[in-house]
Each structure stands twice: as structure tokens, then as C-alpha cells.
């Protein structure tokens, strides 16, 4: 009984789940997703992709138009939130303003008729884990943002639910606190081992927190896998464009004779002879470009238009003499990020970003030779956006 969470972790299964709002908007379209017991699953996607709706359907706050929601082995599709044994952390924290921290933490237990002695013990336990001991008699109004966030988290933990649901719980914290809370969350999850579904629009949060990450777009699941797999083997153009910072560079290319041609560069493709001749969208991660160093990789000559120094690395941005790739998928992906690498000046030419070490001799306007890593290229179908392999 000394353990914070005693109930065995339960998995979550979504089977062909749809959400249609009045007026015909399809917020969630045919999602099939299995969350393993004890897993930390992150739902990520641009705003309006349906990730919060999926979470709310798991919580029971939103009705399911079609399909089934299972928690453990129980079909909860038509169960009320209070019957589902889930705990949720809201983006706004949603603390009860007229209750003290102690009452806030204990409210869920009180509603579930846990005895007063048990309640006190559990509230105190959780408060000491989260460092809230000295705040127990304060009202939420007298707390800082970070403290409120911890109370919201504690209110979920103290319930010892079978499932945690978190709706962008860190988005209201300032940047530094967010990063430290992120690692705290991972540690907490390791310690409690409760199945967690976490919604965020921040791809870095998704990659660092999630044991698996489900990428959504327009209410449909794009890909669900480990962060490593998503990053290195994206299923389509959208996933490739959405994940990674700085994001992947895209350019129109042509596959022919085991090599890909773009702008004025030809790069041989590993095992590329099996690929048919066709035009493709070529993706290159910023780390797939290095300074030319004579290791046999094909090189390209570029002129940097902008250099961003980040201390131990620098981002070199340059133009290619070829039209910019502008598809719905890349635009949707760019929309989602904090416009950090959206184009400020409208330009029809393709822009590339290369991630180079800080000591790389780069000057804006001075020609530079970069090498392309042939094993770090991605090909996408220009029509469907699907990955070509």
C-alpha cells in the first residue's frame, strides 16, 4: 500500500472511431489505435487535427459518433466520464477556485467515497511527491503557474486511475519551466507506470515524452510508432515535414537510373536501381547535409543567404535554383509549428537548411560546398505524398 498506484495499468483500444459534429464537420475519421498497458502515448498534430477530440472521447467528455472505445477489456463507448476511472489534466488546469489545494486534490476521492483517513493519507503522499506540502491550505489563486500545474497533476495522480489523459498540460508554462516539467513527467510516468495519453501540438514535446507517438492530420491517423521510427522512416510527406527541427528540406527531384537528380545535383541512391524512373519529392534532413570533406558523397555548391548561430551549431539557410515544393501536406505541417521556419519573404525558389557544427567556416554570400549524405534521403510520391521505398 505504500505504492502510489495500486491498480494494474490498463490498455486503451480505439476501434474505427469517428466523430461527426453537428453541421457535418468530421473531427475524427476512422481512428484505430491501441495503447499498451503502462505506455506513454502522445497524440500530436497541427491545431484542428482532432487530437483533443480523440482524448475527450477516451475521457467520455465527447460522444463517439461511430466505433468503440475500450479501456482495459471494458467497452466504455457509452459510459459517462465518472464511470471510466480515468483522470485528466486540462490545458487550463481547471482547478476548483473555491477549494484549497488539499480539497482540490481530495475532491476526486471524496466523490468516489474514499474514507476520510485514506483520503488524507493519499493527499499527503501525493503532495509530498510533488512538493506541495506547504501549499495545501492555499487556494489556487495564491499559487504560481507552475504550482497550479503541479496541483492539476496531483489531482490526477491521487485518484490512482487506470488511465491518465493530458491535454497540453505544459502549454501555459514558460519555456524553461516547460522543459524541466517535461523530464519530470517522464520520471513520474516511469515511477507510476500508469497508461498515459498525452496531447500536444509541440513535436519536440511529443518526441521527448512519447514511448510511441501518433501523428494526426485532419482527423485521420497518419502514423503511430516510436519517435525514432517516425523520424527516420516517416510514412508520408506530412509526417516527415511535421517532425524534426529544423524541419526537413523538400525539393522536386527525378529518379532515374539509380540516382536522384534535383536542382543541378545528382545523388546515387542506395539500392536505387530497383526504383522505377519517376518524378518525386525529395526530402533531406538538415543533418543530411555536411561540409564537403572528400568522403565521396556528392557535393553541391551553394551560397548561404542566412546563418543562424545557436552556440554549438549553426543553421545555414540557402536557396536552390528550383521551384519550391508547396503541397497541402507541407503547408499543414508548417502551420503547426510556431512559424519558426515559415518564409518571411514570399519566394518561389526552394529554401534549404543545413545543420552544421559551430566551427564550420560559413559566411553569408560566400560560396560553399556541401556534401549530401546519400543514405539520408527520403522520397515521396508527388501525388499522394506517400513515402516511396
Amino acid at each position, binding site marked *: 500500500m505504500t505504492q502510489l498506484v495500486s491498480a494494474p495499468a490498463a490498455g486503451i483500444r480505439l476501434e474505427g472511431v469517428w466523430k461527426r459534429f453537428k453541421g457535418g464537420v468530421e473531427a475524427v475519421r476512422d481512428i484505430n489505435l491501441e495503447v499498451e498497458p503502462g505506455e506513454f502515448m502522445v497524440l500530436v498534430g497541427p491545431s484542428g487535427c482532432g487530437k483533443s477530440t480523440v482524448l475527450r472521447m477516451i*475521457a*467520455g*467528455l465527447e460522444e463517439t459518433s461511430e466505433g468503440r472505445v475500450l479501456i482495459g477489456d471494458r467497452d466504455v463507448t457509452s459510459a*459517462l*466520464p*465518472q464511470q471510466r476511472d*480515468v*483522470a*485528466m489534466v*486540462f*490545458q*487550463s*488546469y*481547471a*482547478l*476548483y*477556485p*473555491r*477549494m484549497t489545494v488539499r480539497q482540490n486534490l481530495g*475532491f*476526486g476521492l471524496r*466523490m*468516489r467515497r474514499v474514507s476520510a483517513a485514506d483520503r488524507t493519507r493519499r493527499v499527503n503522499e501525493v503532495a509530498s511527491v510533488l512538493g506541495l506540502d506547504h501549499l495545501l491550505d492555499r*487556494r*489556487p*489563486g*495564491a*499559487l504560481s*503557474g507552475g504550482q*497550479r500545474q503541479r496541483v492539476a497533476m496531483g*489531482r490526477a495522480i491521487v*485518484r490512482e486511475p487506470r488511465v491518465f*489523459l493530458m491535454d497540453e498540460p505544459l502549454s*501555459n508554462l514558460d519555456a524553461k519551466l516547460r522543459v524541466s516539467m517535461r523530464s519530470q513527467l517522464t520520471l513520474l510516468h516511469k515511477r507510476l507506470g500508469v497508461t498515459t495519453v498525452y496531447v500536444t501540438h509541440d513535436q519536440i514535446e511529443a518526441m521527448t515524452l512519447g514511448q510511441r507517438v501518433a501523428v494526426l492530420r485532419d482527423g485521420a491517423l497518419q502514423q503511430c510508432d516510436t519517435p525514432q521510427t517516425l523520424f527516420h522512416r516517416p510514412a508520408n510527406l506530412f509526417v516527415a515535414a511535421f517532425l524534426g527541427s529544423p524541419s526537413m528540406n523538400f525539393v522536386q527531384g527525378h529518379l532515374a537510373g539509380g540516382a536522384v537528380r534535383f536542382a543541378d545535383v545528382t545523388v546515387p541512391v542506395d539500392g536505387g536501381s530497383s526504383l522505377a524512373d519517376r518524378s518525386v519529392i525529395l526530402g533531406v534532413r538538415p543533418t543530411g547535409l555536411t561540409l564537403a570533406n572528400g568522403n565521396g558523397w556528392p557535393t553541391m555548391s551553394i551560397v548561404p543567404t542566412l546563418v543562424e548561430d545557436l552556440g554549438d551549431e549553426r543553421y545555414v539557410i540557402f536557396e536552390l535554383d528550383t521551384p519550391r515544393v508547396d503541397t497541402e501536406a507541407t503547408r499543414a505541417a508548417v502551420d503547426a509549428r510556431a512559424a519558426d521556419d515559415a518564409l518571411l519573404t514570399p519566394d518561389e525558389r526552394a529554401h534549404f537548411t543545413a545543420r552544421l557544427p559551430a566551427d564550420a567556416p560559413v559566411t553569408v554570400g560566400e560560396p560553399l560546398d556541401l556534401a549530401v549524405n546519400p543514405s539520408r534521403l527520403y522520397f515521396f510520391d508527388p501525388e499522394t505524398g506517400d513515402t516511396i521505398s
Partner: protein
Amino acid sequence: MSAPTTTAPPVVAGPVTAGRTAIRSRWAPYLTTFRYLALFGLMLFFLMPVYALVITAFKHPAEVSVSRMWELPASLSFASFAAVWPKLQDGFLNSMMLAIPAALISSMLGAMNGFVLSKWRFPGADAVFPLILFGMFIPYQAILIPMTQTMTSAGLRGGLDGLILVHIIYGLPITTLIFRSYFVGISDEIIEAAQVDGAGMLRTFAFVALPIALPAFAVAMIWQFTSAWNDFLFGAVLTNRNYWPITITLNNIAGGQSVPFNEAMASALLACIPTVLVYILLGRFFMRGLMAGALKG
């Protein structure tokens, strides 16, 4: 080094001062004075009855006369109050027993209505709300006869219980509106958090929604108490002599031709004290900030 800093400010300040002088006319100071004088004069005009009420009530009965009605009393006297209180007492108590439950119950029911119409919505909520509001626009006089007949056949005519019931029901539209507007402004996430925490509709209302609705409660209470206290028509129709509210007692004291002014004024002053007190006591709950800390902040 100081040269650019000394030349810069006039350039910035120049157009601003120029703009101000261009807009202000030469007569502006006189206009402002005139405006305040006019407002002050109007204020005095509208306060005249209140002034007459207060000073006449505190005058010694021998001092009261029409020709000297604007003069201040020579000395403070409570003789008029003492003379009038025995006549007013029963009405005062009746009104208390009427207005307090009427205001409390009506506000409570309005809070429930407002909650289910905004935070715990049911199919058809959008149709029900306008129907409830409709009740606000039905004049008392229009329903007087059917109401009296209904109350008579229900055996609720004559005592205070029927009158309380009528005031509760007649207050529902406005209290529902007050609470619904208030709850609409409160984040849905707090209600949802309570649901996920395991509270059903009633406990969400009682433990989460009602405690944060204190400002709305104060507004509804002030409104309902005042309208029940000040009502004359329903009281006159629905109660018999023993249960007359203060408005009727007051009318009987002050309405006659032979009644001395000082007694009429003293009873009027006594009759309006409770509503003023309610406003002073509950008014402080009008303050904002009861929601502090619920959300990200």
C-alpha cells in the same frame, strides 16, 4: 552627446501639443464648468423628495408644516418613528417572512436552471431558455385574474405561502437569466474536471458550480428581495388583513388625507431600510475575483 537628446523631445512632443490645442476650444474651461453646474443642479432637483423625506421624518411632530417643509429640523426627533412603528410592525414582519424565502428559493432555483442551461446542457436547452425568459415580459396585471383563481382553487389564497410561491415563480426568469449569463462565462473545463473526478450533475452543481457563483447569487438575491419587498399588487390580491405586506400597511398609513406628513415620511423611511441594507450587505460580493486561480492565470 547632449545635443541630439535635447533636440529630439520637442520634435516628438510638438505634434502632440499642437493636436491638443487644435481640439480644445477657447471656451472649453467654461463649458466644463457649465456642464458640472448643470449636472449638479439636476442632482439636487432629483434628490429633493429624498431630502424632504428624511428631514420631515426626523422633525418633531409639532415642527412639521407645509410652509416650513424645506427647513432643517431644529433638533433630531424620533417621535414620528415611535408613533408609526406599532402600526407598521406587522407588515414589516410579514414582508420579511415573504421576501427572504422568496429571494432565497428563487435564486437557488435560478442557479439550477442557469447551470443546466449553460453547463450541463440537455437536448432542447436552446428552446427552453427563451421560453423561460418569455415570462419576464408578461405584465403582472395580465395574469392577475387567472392567478387569483388558480391560487383560490389551490387553497393558497389569504396567507403568505401563496404569495411566496408567486414571487418565487415570477422571479425565475430573471434569476435564470442572471445565473445562465454568469455560468456561460465560466470555463467548461472546470465542470468537465469535476465530471472526470467522478461527480454527477447534482454534486458538480453543489460542490463546484454553486461556490463560484456567489457574485451571481448576490445579484439575484438583491433583485429578488427588492422586488418581493416592493410588491404591492400581488400582496393586495393574495393576502388577507393578517398577512398584509409592508407595502399595503404603508399605503394605509400614508394614503389617507388626514395623516400627518411626519408619520407618512417616517414609515416610508422605515419601509425602505431593508432593501438598502440588503444592497449594502450583498453588494460586496459583486466584486470580481472569485474565480481567481482556477485557470492558467
